[in-house]
Each structure stands twice: as C-alpha cells, then as structure tokens.
C-alpha cells in the first residue's frame, strides 16, 4: 500500500472524480427546455463546483472492490443531483442566504421557482439509475432500492430536525444529535456512496455492515466538523454565511451542550431566542431574525466550552472512523483506489473549508 503524499494529492484525485461526475451531469442536463424558468435553475447549483466527495467515495470504493468507473458513474450522477435537490430545498427551509459563495437559488429566482427546480433535480436524479446502466439487472435493482431507502431516510431526518425547531425542543442529548445526522446527512453523504460502491464493485457479494459502520463514523465526524466550521471557519472558504446555524436555531452538538451547560438565566434567554426563531421561521416573512445576537450565543458557547466539547466529541467519532475503515476494507486488495478512500478520511476530517 502506498502512502499518499498529502492532502493536495487527495484534492487532485478528488477533482478528477468531481470533473468526471460534473461532465456526466452536464450531459444529463443539457438541452432541456424550458430553460428560463426551470432548467437554467436546475443547472445552477450543479455548476457551482462543490468538492464532489459523494461521487468520489462511490467511484473509488467501486473500483477498490473490483468494479469500474463506468459501472458507478450513473449512481454517482444520481447522488450528486439528489444532493443538489436537497440543498435547494434546505436553503429555503433554513432561509439560507449563500450557497457555495453565491446567493441561494430562492434569493435569485424566488421561492416558487426554486422549489420547482429542487423537485426537478430530485426527479432527474432517478434517471441515471434506470436499466440503461452497465450493471446486471440484479445489482441495478439493489442500487435503486438503496437509493430510494437513502432518499427516505434523508427526508425523515430533515423532518425530525425541522420538528425539533418548530416545537422548540431543547432537552436533547448528543445521542439524539447522532441519530439525527445519521439519517439526515450520513446516509447520503458517506453511507450510501460507500455501500453502493461496494455493492457494484463486488457484484453484490460484499457484506455491507462494515462499510455502513465506517460510513456513519466518517459522516458523523464530518458533520460535526462542518457545524464547527459554520461558527469558526472562514466564510470565503466555507461558502456559506458564518453563524447561519445559530440564526436558524439548528440543533448542533454545540447548541445541545450549551443548553445543558448554561446558567439558568442564560438558558432561559436561549430557549426564548429559539422559540422566537421558530415563530419567525413559521411566519416565513423573511425579515430580520429576532432574539439574541448570534455573536452573543457564540460567546456563550466559547465560555461554556461547547466548541471544545464538540471538537473533542468529533475527534472521538473520527478515531472510530479510522478503526472502522480498517475493518471495512480488510478484505479489499491493495490498490490506488483503496488508498484514496483511506486518504479521504483525514481529508474530510481535517478540512478547514
């Protein structure tokens, strides 16, 4: 097994997979009409270059387990389109203002057109999974089943989180947060790409429990880091507005810790703030977010050690991810693709953007 030179080499390989997927995605979306009120919007987020971690994980895992890029490219396009569909709708639900360094789609075109474009992206994501794929019918059906299950879990997770906000749920444990992100984020970010990569590459013969475990640890550690970056990262590199999670009342690990660690008067103020945010979101008037200043909440988090808690907690999950990789890929022969999957773990968990 060769050692990767460093994160730059991972980024180069990642960029290669990302380009491959983006080109396939562009072919998939090209020439569709009507352009002005639908497909121009549909093509917007996919054209804002993301890192392409999901398709890269899928393509590399498939090859590591013995498959080819050609076999996994359709599902790679599918997951990237579904990801963009989720982003469009999430941005509306969260009232987000920026996505990948540019204004969100609903700010550019209005909510009705953005919702419709998100619907279109979700439907278009199913097309690359049809029988035209260079996969056997048996594997193709399993990939489709996995895709539908993943969509269901992601939507359910989103509903749970929105419900927490709407009902102003404040008595949460870190385990509740992990359960949430398992469904809402991990499935489609890491678990599904790893499972489907192994499924295709091994022609359905590889046991999937170990890659599921690895995917969860990796996705959870990644999400905790992403939540931290929203508070202390660089807006230019992060691509979204900083402190957006605090404005939206998102139940992050840091907020859950703060709610438990805050003094009674601080907690009362915080709970009242979250209730005001929930009312504001339910009204959907788009005006300024009421309640506490996000900077004030951040100060409380720093003062009570919530950021440090989340960081350390995430490091524990990350350590589990490294362990789980070794278990999941124990039977996989050495190859550059296996090495890439191994190298992407520190890349995802030590990124600053």
């Amino acid at each position, binding site marked *: 097994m060769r050692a990767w030179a460093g994160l730059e080499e991972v980024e180069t390989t990642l960029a290669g997979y990302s380009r491959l997927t983006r080109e396939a995605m562009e072919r998939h979306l090209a020439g569709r009409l009507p352009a002005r009120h639908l497909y121009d919007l549909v093509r917007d987020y996919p054209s804002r270059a993301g890192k392409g971690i999901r398709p890269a994980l899928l393509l590399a895992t498939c090859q590591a387990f*013995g498959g080819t890029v050609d076999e996994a490219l359709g599902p790679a396009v599918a997951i990237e389109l579904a990801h963009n569909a989720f982003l469009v709708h999430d941005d509306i639900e969260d009232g987000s203002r920026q996505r990948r360094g540019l204004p969100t789609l609903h700010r550019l075109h209005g909510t009705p057109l953005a919702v419709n474009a998100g619907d279109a992206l979700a439907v278009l994501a199913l097309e690359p999974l049809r029988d035209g794929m260079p996969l056997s019918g048996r594997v193709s059906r399993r990939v489709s089943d996995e895709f539908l299950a993943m969509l269901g879990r992601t939507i359910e997770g989103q509903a749970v989180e929105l419900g927490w906000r709407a009902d102003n749920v404040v008595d949460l444990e870190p385990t509740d947060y992990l359960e949430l992100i*398992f469904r809402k984020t991990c499935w489609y970010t890491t678990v599904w790409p790893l499972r489907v990569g192994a499924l295709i590459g091994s022609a359905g013969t590889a046991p999937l429990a170990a890659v599921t475990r690895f995917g969860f640890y990796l996705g959870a550690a990644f999400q905790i880091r992403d939540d931290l970056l929203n508070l*202390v990262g660089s807006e230019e590199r992060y691509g979204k507005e900083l402190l957006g999670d605090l404005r939206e009342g998102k139940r992050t690990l840091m907020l859950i810790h703060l709610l438990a660690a805050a003094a009674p008067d601080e907690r009362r103020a915080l709970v009242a703030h979250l209730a005001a945010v929930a009312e504001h979101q339910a009204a959907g008037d788009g005006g300024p977010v009421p309640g506490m200043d996000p900077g004030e909440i951040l100060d409380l988090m720093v003062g009570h050690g919530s950021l*440090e808690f989340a*960081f350390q907690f995430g490091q524990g*999950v990350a*350590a589990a991810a490294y362990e789980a990789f070794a278990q999941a890929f124990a039977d996989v022969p050495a190859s550059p693709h296996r090495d890439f999957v191994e190298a992407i773990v*520190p890349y995802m968990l030590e990124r600053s953007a």
Partner: protein
Amino acid sequence: MSPAGNQVEGNGQGGRRRPAPFGPFEALSSLTEVQRRGMDAAAQVIEGFLSALDGHQPPPAGPADQPGDGPEPGFAQLRTSVARALDLYSDLVRRSFEGYADLVEQRLHARGVGLHGAAPGPGELTVQAPSGATAGGTVWLHNTTDELAAAVLRLTALTAHDGTAVPGTAGRFDPAEARIAPGASVAARLAVGLAGVAPGVYRGHVLAEGLPEAALPLRLVVTAPAPGPP
C-alpha cells in the same frame, strides 16, 4: 483544528492517523473523556441500527488487519467473479424473454382482428388425439379495432407430408359464427373428428370468413388408436 487551541494527541494536522494496532478502540488509551464519549455514543447509534439488519455481524474484537481474519481476499474476488458471470447469463436469459414478450405485445397491439391459439402471440395451434377419436382445441378471435367485427370460422383441408388429407369439413367450431365487440375477444371450441384418419401429422389453417387477413396455422397430430379392452 481545535477551537480552543488544543490538539488531540496523536492526530497531527494534515497527517494521517494510522489504524490502532489493537482491537476496536482498545488501543486508544490517549482518548480524552469527551472523545471516548463521542466514540461510545456513535457506536451505540450505529450498532443499534445494524443489529436490526439481517446478516449483521458485530465488529471483530481482534486486530483489524491481521492475516487470517475472515475469508482470503482471493476468495472474495472469486466470489465476485462468479456473481458477475451468473449475472451476465441471467441477464441474457431475461433479455431474450423480454424480446420475445415485446414481439408478442406488438402483435397483440397491432390494430385488427386476429386469430390465435390458446396462448396469444405468433405460432400455431396444435391439437392431438388417437385415430378414431376427436381432437379438440380452443381458437381465440381478438378484435383490437374500434369497430364491431363478425366472422364465420372455417377449417381448411389438413394435409400430411405424403399428401394424405383430412377434409376441412371434419372440423366443427362452437360457436361457428362470432360477433366480436371492439376491444373484445371471443373463444371458439374446435373439434376435429378423426374417424378413419391414419396416424400422422397434418397441417392446415383456421380461417375466418369476413376477415381475409386472419389465419391461424393448425397442426393436427393423430396417434395410433387407443387399444380396446382385452
């Protein structure tokens, strides 16, 4: 990144953390209490999920990448190759059947009135009986037009390879005349009397008077007479 400037022991910036040399989590003695809490909470979530799945196996307690654990990598590759070969053959069979089904469907969806045997689609109707008995089969008339169709069924002479013929009048249809509503089908029972007919294979057609394009090839197999009681 550490928000408070702390570094996790053994996790340098930009480097890779090697898998622990012992079993799951056991060698991570340098973990802080919060780190271990994160690890345990995550394990609780994922193991709870996996335990609900069929075929779940808990993570092995021993070293992750020790030789001798689990099946040989070569075995996994062999298993994959066999699965791919089986998939290839099963897909070939499936596609062949799908191609046949498409042909049948096209024929059924062709607009017109058609004659078919018991099974829809191209082919012929075979009826069989011993010499002296009566051979029977079912003929279907499918009307896929938008108009009422009427037909009188008739049997052509059936001819063997040596020129021996069974006259068409040996055949009877019940009903002999049919009126078929648009989009409907009608079945008619065919009976061919084989008195004095020598054993052999005879071929002819079922025709429908009033429907000049409709014809169903018929194969009549006459076997030796059944032995009488001793």
